């Protein structure tokens, strides 16, 4: 009698009297069984992992740690498959904001302490008994240039006082509608839970907020993403103040997508050009010829003034000094101080300057109008 192995049921000799059958029958069969395991006839290809063949890991089982850093090349990635959510913040993207770096302060360097416009395209909304003072600041700017230094004292505002950049989607940036955008800004503050970002708007948009700055007196990038409703007509990109503090704001970005983008400074010409779409000061140099006009009476002249940049809407035109800051030439190039000046026929591209003098013009003659003081400016303001 023979025994058998447990796994393959191979025969084993048990005692001396079964040697003959064991050797001639059972052992032969056992060897055939073993041979069959390594025979192509049975499907054995020597390609299995246990035989040193290629490893075929289960689908989805390869993790980042199994891939050597820096070995994945572009050819390994299918075309047009990298989504915005996979981008790091240092992937440069177009900034939809104006004056994101707080570099342009055409209305002055502050302090701005009342509700109204401050740095170009940023509007202060001071609620209740809160106070907010915003000034241009170089000492605390991130990297270089300027930032906005904000000193806030909480009163009854309940965390709603803010400085914000409004975007008019209906008339200015309609393509933002129906997209997810991310608003981010570098903020430095020494008070915890005092400053955060928020996005508000209409069209059913539910206001969303970033986390508060932690108050470690270091710059940190706050960000908040929002899906802008297709019916929204505006959104406000807010910096909200909820506790008394001094905060520094710099490097704001608004990008399409759900991932914040690091601030990418514009060329200064482009930075200024964006701001000039909404606010512009013309003149301001004593003796600089501002416009050439035509006298149509001994006391009146008209002159067309083209703006440097076409405005977002038909602007308000202001002469800060009034007529006293301007002169025009009479027939003999003798300067005549104006007695009245105003804008008229204003379009987004330019304005007509209506100048009045006591006497000295000749109807039909040309005349030059110019500031006679550095304060003689024309201020053009269009806030959509």
């Amino acid at each position, binding site marked *: 009698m023979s025994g058998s192995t447990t796994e393959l049921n191979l025969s084993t000799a048990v005692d001396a009297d079964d040697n003959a059958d064991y050797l001639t029958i059972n052992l032969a069969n056992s060897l055939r069984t073993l041979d069959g395991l390594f025979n192509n006839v049975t499907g054995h290809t020597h390609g299995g992992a246990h035989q040193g063949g290629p490893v075929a890991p289960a689908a989805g089982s390869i993790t980042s740690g199994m891939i050597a850093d820096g070995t994945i090349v572009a050819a390994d990635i299918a075309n047009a498959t990298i989504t915005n959510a996979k981008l790091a913040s240092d992937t440069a993207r177009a900034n939809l904001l104006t004056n994101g770096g707080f570099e342009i302060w055409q*209305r*002055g360097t502050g302090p701005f302490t*009342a509700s*109204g*416009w401050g740095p170009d395209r940023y509007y202060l909304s001071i609620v209740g008994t809160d106070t907010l003072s915003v000034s241009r600041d170089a000492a605390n700017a991130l990297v270089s240039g300027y930032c906005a230094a904000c000193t806030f004292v909480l009163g009854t505002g309940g965390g709603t006082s803010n400085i914000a950049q409004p975007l*008019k989607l*209906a*008339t200015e940036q309609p393509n933002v509608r129906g997209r997810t955008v991310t608003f981010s800004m570098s903020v430095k503050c020494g008070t915890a839970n005092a400053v955060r970002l928020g996005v508000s708007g209409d069209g059913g948009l539910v206001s969303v907020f970033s986390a508060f700055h932690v108050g470690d007196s270091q710059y940190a990038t706050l960000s908040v993403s929002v899906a802008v409703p297709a019916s929204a*007509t505006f959104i406000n990109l807010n910096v909200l103040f909820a506790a008394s503090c001094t905060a520094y704001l710099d490097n704001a970005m608004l990008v399409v997508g759900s991932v914040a983008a690091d601030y990418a400074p514009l060329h200064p010409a482009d930075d200024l050009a964006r701001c000039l779409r909404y606010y512009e000061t013309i003149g301001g140099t004593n003796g600089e010829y501002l416009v050439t006009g035509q006298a*149509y009476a001994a006391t009146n002249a*008209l002159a067309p003034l083209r703006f440097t940049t076409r405005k977002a*809407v*038909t*602007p*308000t*035109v*202001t*002469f*800060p*000094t*009034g*007529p*006293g*800051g301007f002169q025009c030439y009479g027939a003999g190039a003798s300067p005549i101080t104006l007695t009245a*000046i*105003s*804008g*008229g*026929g*204003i379009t987004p591209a330019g*304005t007509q300057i*209506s100048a009045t003098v006591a006497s000295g013009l000749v109807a039909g003659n040309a005349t030059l109008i110019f500031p006679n003081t550095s304060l003689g400016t024309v*201020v053009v*303001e*269009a*806030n*959509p």
Partner: protein
Amino acid sequence: MSVRPIAFNADGSVDVVYDEMGHSGTIPAAEVQWATQIDGSHNHNFIVLHCPDGCGATSTWPVGGGADATMGQQMFIQKTQREGCACGNVPAGTDALPESHVRLNVNRMDGAGRWVEA
């Protein structure tokens, strides 16, 4: 910045501020003037405000609202309701006509979407 309206009073006067100089005050109704054209007629698309402080600053406001759509448009509505429109087509009154006329002019100047609901 502009000599800008911040409040409208029952007598037609307008409270204004001129942020740049820190000036503020009230402009009497009679001094809230339509812009004058070369032929001496008034233009219903523009209103001229002089700083009440006497500094000489003057701002010409377009009916679209210029620097402040809400207050700028409202200034035209208030003036038209009180005096009728400079064009002569809309009489003074508090019915819907003055506001509708101003809204029409806003749309003509800056396009649909500029109008701010009062």
